[in-house]
């Protein structure tokens, strides 16, 4: 008995370093996974330290330096590396600050959508019957309206801003999680340990929290990572249409929208925020694909 306990302690002690070693190894083995993690880390750091990194106040209007090209073009200067816009605002600073909105809205709304979707999926899958029928018809209804259209209509009614964006994207985006979690719940609830828990009188709530939730979390992590990528694009699209964040808050989408009117003469305003979006989203997709391969080897995509 003592020996067994000791063994157990040994195992306990070894879990942590092995855990990190294993994940570190898995990450290192996948080049795209590593690239993804690096891009995501850099984007997050830029967003957090934007006030320190940005050379100018992103909202500072300077009529003396209107529509200056990037530093490497004729007429550009190293004072404004990526040029300035029609109001003389520094493009680089605006892009640096824009990352805050994209990442904040992307992550927060996915967390909100995930919370709604996982809850509905668990309830729908576990209880089945008419509850399931009603919730699934609700899911079908949300699926029939394209997310961007749904968000657009809601944003036209309420005052737009970062908080509204997070709520709107959270409320319109939960459907995928609900479907996924429901599917997984349906199969997990038939397993012996869940049936055993049920037969000894464990409450439904406890079964859902203790047995079902931990089992659906890994698939949730995979799709929510990829969903941050699509949400960032969605937020940019809405801000591009003028229904997202309002000035003086900057978002990559709103810079693009401003730059569109000056495309013929000052292409740099609209070009660089798009590159920022593409690189960030690319990093998240790489990270998400890698996570999927590691967490759920069945769906390996190589």
């Amino acid at each position: 008995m003592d020996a067994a306990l000791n063994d157990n302690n040994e195992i306990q002690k070894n879990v942590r370093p092995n855990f990190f070693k294993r994940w570190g190894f898995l990450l290192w083995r996948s080049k795209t996974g590593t690239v993804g993690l690096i891009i995501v880390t850099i984007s997050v750091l830029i967003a957090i330290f934007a006030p320190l990194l940005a050379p100018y106040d992103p909202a500072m209007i300077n009529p003396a330096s209107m529509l200056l090209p990037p530093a490497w073009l004729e007429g550009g200067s190293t004072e404004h590396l990526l040029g300035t816009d029609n109001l003389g605002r520094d493009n680089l600073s605006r892009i640096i600050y824009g990352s805050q909105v994209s990442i904040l809205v992307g992550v927060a709304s996915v967390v909100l959508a995930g919370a709604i979707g996982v809850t509905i999926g668990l309830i729908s899958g576990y209880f089945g019957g008419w509850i399931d029928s009603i919730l699934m018809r609700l899911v079908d209804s949300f699926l029939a309206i394209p997310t961007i259209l749904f968000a657009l209509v809601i944003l036209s009614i309420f005052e737009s801003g970062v908080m509204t964006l997070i709520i709107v994207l959270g409320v319109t985006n939960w459907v995928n999680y609900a479907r996924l979690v429901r599917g997984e719940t349906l199969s997990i609830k038939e397993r012996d340990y869940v049936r055993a828990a049920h037969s000894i009188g464990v409450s439904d709530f406890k079964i859902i929290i203790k047995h079902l939730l931990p089992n659906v979390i890994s698939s949730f992590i995979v799709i929510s990572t990829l969903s941050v990528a699509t949400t960032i694009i969605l937020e940019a699209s809405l801000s591009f249409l003028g229904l997202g964040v309002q000035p003086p808050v900057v978002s990559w989408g709103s810079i693009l929208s401003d730059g569109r009117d000056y495309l013929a003469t000052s292409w740099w305003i609209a070009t660089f925020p798009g590159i920022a979006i593409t690189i960030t989203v690319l990093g998240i997709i790489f990270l998400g694909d890698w996570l999927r391969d590691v967490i759920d080897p069945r769906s390996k995509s190589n």
Partner: protein
Amino acid sequence: MAKFLLRRLLQIIPVLLIISFIVFSLVFVAGDPVALMLPDDASQEDVENLRESLGLNEPFIVQYGIYLRDLLTGDFGTSYRYGTDALEVVLDRLPATLELAGLALFLSVVVAIPLGIWSATKRNTSMDLVATGAAVVGKAMPNFWLGIMLILVFSVMLGWFPVSGRGTFLHIVLPALTLATGIAAEMTRLIRSSMIESLSQDYVRTARSKGLKRNLVVYKHAFKNSLIPVITITFLQTSTLVGGTLITETVFAWPGLGQLLIQSVYARDMAIVQASVFIIASLVILMNLIADILYRYLDPRIKLN
């Protein structure tokens, strides 16, 4: 099959009801349309009369009932901007959108199928890397930015295509390319992984070991079987496709449903917004139904219930 169809059709009724409720509630929350419909100097009495005649003084649930009754007769209300039946205005714009979406879907299929098969059969070569790399970049690029960049290069710099509008074939090239890129990227990734799975199946190995030519096996055995998920996913892309037209039409001033919708959202022309949401949702539901039927029809292993 008949039983399955009936059940699926019956499921559509509550879905349409829920959508009508969501749409109506949003419009209800959006507030009084009367202010937009009358001139600024209208008297208080005129406002009250219009409110009364529009039934805006009734409680929520009564208004919803009236709304549903009108819906059943195809009456989505009158657009205050166009002064005509909202449904008519929406249906008027639909062909332009279908034209754009159709061409984009066609382009995506034409590019994605060969690219997907090619990268699956040449797996882990540099060619595969290029194809999958292109697909992932296509997926990461925001639609509207790609559109703007295409305008910058091909319209502003090279002058090959018009910047915006609809008319000649040249007008549709850039918007269709913009819309097709994201979908082609998604489809390429899907076809590739679907093909890889088919290629690893026993029947493919058996066919190869019988001495059948490699190309024959790839197309006759593997590709045919990986087509099932591809076809269903193509239909399920309708929602993404329609969502994409909203943005693309705005970027290129393409006079379709998307552009109309966004202008109506800005102008708070709620009759048009409601009618569009309904038409789009019905379209998506129809496509999903077709996807479901095709899926069952194409794969005899799936039971029809």
